[in-house]
């Protein structure tokens, strides 16, 4: 499926919403964040191949969808509910980078974020984060908080029952949620044509009574604009939005996947020249915002920052077996405590 340019219809709700763009320095920052997201994916794959980290899903090809949306939220005010591919958004919204690596190295405490961090932990169970996001947004309104919740998922998760229940409830309760659907064409090895018979996933919004739009997910500005509109709507009490960002997964689903076994090389052809980082670079160049040598400096600094965080995570104490019993229950209960003591004391 070829990428479709977004039909950007600025909200006409009469709520004084302005169509926001990215200022020059924000555009450079978006570019830097995209480079960061890609390097983080690449470093994750290297570490996994070297046996230093567990299974990880990369963001290659989806950087514009992730960065454009995360930057449309206000840090410290709005919430990010990730799936598992949006590590850059987690870091942008306050999760220490070292904890990202600790998580993939098996440290149970790595999902305990600093106080005030408005990010939920990584969700591996498909679509389970969507009802959480709706409950979170609905709850914020009960607390008189004007925060907005942005939840990431993919077109595969969109086929889960949880996705339907979450969007339906969000419509009924006018929950301040942005459903950020990254349609990357593949649910592991299931292609889009076997995922849905519909032309548009965004069209489902109408059935839930929420706003919906399709956006070119490889254009960081388009994603940012669409998300900013959705955030403004949610903040103004006008309810949820389903954004379908049309993008393409440039690499494997994750480190355990080998797409050469199911993707024909021709499937990539419509996406040649569509790398979101290349497109952002062209945009910056056209506007004279990227001076010679700046990208190399950014890449070097990002590479060092990420490598240092990975090394720090490796130096931190590995999880002991007792870690299995922590970070889940406030009150673990007698049976778990007994199992814990049996494990630690070596009884069987």
């Amino acid at each position: 499926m070829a990428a479709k340019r977004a039909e950007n219809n600025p909200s006409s709700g009469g709520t004084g919403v302005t169509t926001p763009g990215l200022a020059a320095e924000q555009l450079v920052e978006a570019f830097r964040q995209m480079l960061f997201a890609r390097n983080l994916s690449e470093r994750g794959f290297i570490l996994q191949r070297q046996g230093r980290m567990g299974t990880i899903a990369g963001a290659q090809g989806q950087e514009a969808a992730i960065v454009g949306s995360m930057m449309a939220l206000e840090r410290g005010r709005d919430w990010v509910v990730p799936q598992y591919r949006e590590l850059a958004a987690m870091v942008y919204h306050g999760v220490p980078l070292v904890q990202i690596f600790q998580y993939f190295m098996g440290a149970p405490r790595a999902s305990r974020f600093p106080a005030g961090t408005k990010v939920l932990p990584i969700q591996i169970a498909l679509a389970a984060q969507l009802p959480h996001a709706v409950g979170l947004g609905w709850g914020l309104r009960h607390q008189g908080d004007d925060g907005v919740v942005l939840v990431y998922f993919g077109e595969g998760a969109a086929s889960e029952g949880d996705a339907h229940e979450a969007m339906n409830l969000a419509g009924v309760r006018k929950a301040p949620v942005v459903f950020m659907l990254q349609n990357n064409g593949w649910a592991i090895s299931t292609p889009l044509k076997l995922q849905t018979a519909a032309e548009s996933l965004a069209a489902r919004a109408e059935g839930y009574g929420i706003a919906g739009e399709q956006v070119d997910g490889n254009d960081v500005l388009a994603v940012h604009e669409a998300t900013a509109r959705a955030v403004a709507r949610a903040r103004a009490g006008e309810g949820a939005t389903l954004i379908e960002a049309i993008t393409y997964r440039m690499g494997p689903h994750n480190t355990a996947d080998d797409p050469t076994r199911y993707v024909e090389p021709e499937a990539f052809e419509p996406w040649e020249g569509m790398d979101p980082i290349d497109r952002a670079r062209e945009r910056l160049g056209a506007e004279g915002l990227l001076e010679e040598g700046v990208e190399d400096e950014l890449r070097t600094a990002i590479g060092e920052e990420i490598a240092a965080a990975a090394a720090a995570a490796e130096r931190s104490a590995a999880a002991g077996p007792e870690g299995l019993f922590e970070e889940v229950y406030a009150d673990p209960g007698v049976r778990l405590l007994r199992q814990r003591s049996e494990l630690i004391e070596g009884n069987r």
Partner: protein
Amino acid sequence: MEVEFRLPDLGEGVAEAEIVEWHVAVGEELSADDPLVDVQTDKAIVSIPSPYTGKVVGLGAEEEEMVAVGAVLVTVETADAAVGAAPEAATEAVSPTQPPPASPSPSPAREGALASPAIRRLARERGIELESIAGSGPKGRIQESDLGTTPAADLPPGGPASARPSAAPLSGRTLPLRGSRRLVAEAMSEAWRTIPHITDLREVEVSNLLEARRLLKARLESRGEAEAAQALTVFALLATIVAGVVSRHPAVNATVDLQQRQITYHDRVDLNVAVSTPQGLLAPVVRAADTLSMSGIARELQRLGTAARDGTLAASDLTRGTVTASNYGSLGSPSGTTIIQPGQTAIVGFGRAVEKPVVRGGAIVVGSVMQVHCSGDHRAMDGLELQAFTAELAATVENPALLLAERD
């Protein structure tokens, strides 16, 4: 200092990998993150980047060799001791950003042997003290193979261990399963696991077939077409008959996909023919066999047979067809069984024709009898369809004159 890099678990529960290609050689310098080696696991071909900068002083395995997770892949001479992964070097605990919840008690140092519950149970059943065994796994973890090396004499007589002969060390030669042997093993295992076979075995009197071949061959020779005459083997006639009969029985020329819950009936008959070669069994394909003339099939079989034995088959000759015929009788056996290839729904096997008493016109005479053995995939067909196919095939082999009916 020299550091060893061991094969990590590259998937989720991958136990071993095959070395596909080394990107470095002994004596070469390499930098951290440079491509080191490509390996194939049961899930994927994976390129492993080097964790170290330095000089390669040893490779742990050759290309095509299998390497277990945890075995040494490469040894590197590094410039300084600080380089590298050293994941065990736990020096500082990186800030848990909030105080951890109060633990009921600090965990005491773990004592005793490191082993999984399954291994502990095995050891209990065999009466083995785990503490008396040196584990060969990571950090001395005891693995099943460590239990197997315990002398049998130490086992309790008549205990459960005697019911587990696999626990004894294997005697004889153990070699890695490689190359075409491994490919055949994998394909046949998959077929045997996933395809419910039904079979129909018939004895066919083939005097008419042999006579037809003699006539056709003599005709070619009389025209001076010696090569074509030589190519016209009995199997060439059989393959021609198979291609024609298969094209009229869709169920035996199909692909079952249980995951998608669908059966694909193929428009064409691409006939795999089993050929025994010095490198092992190969099954090159005669494309669109149902559209070829008899002499076309004969020529193609001759070309494929020669190329298979010379090892010059093109990759396109070796792709999977839609149905398979095996001429195992050419190796001497009058009778045998066959296994359907994955992705197909039938295979036909022909035994060696032998002289036997047969009843003809109420009298017992000597005939040439060949066994025709058809196996079908029960997911794609029932006995009715398999019998209809086999019956038409057997009738045509017995009376090649029935081929005339195809033009009727």
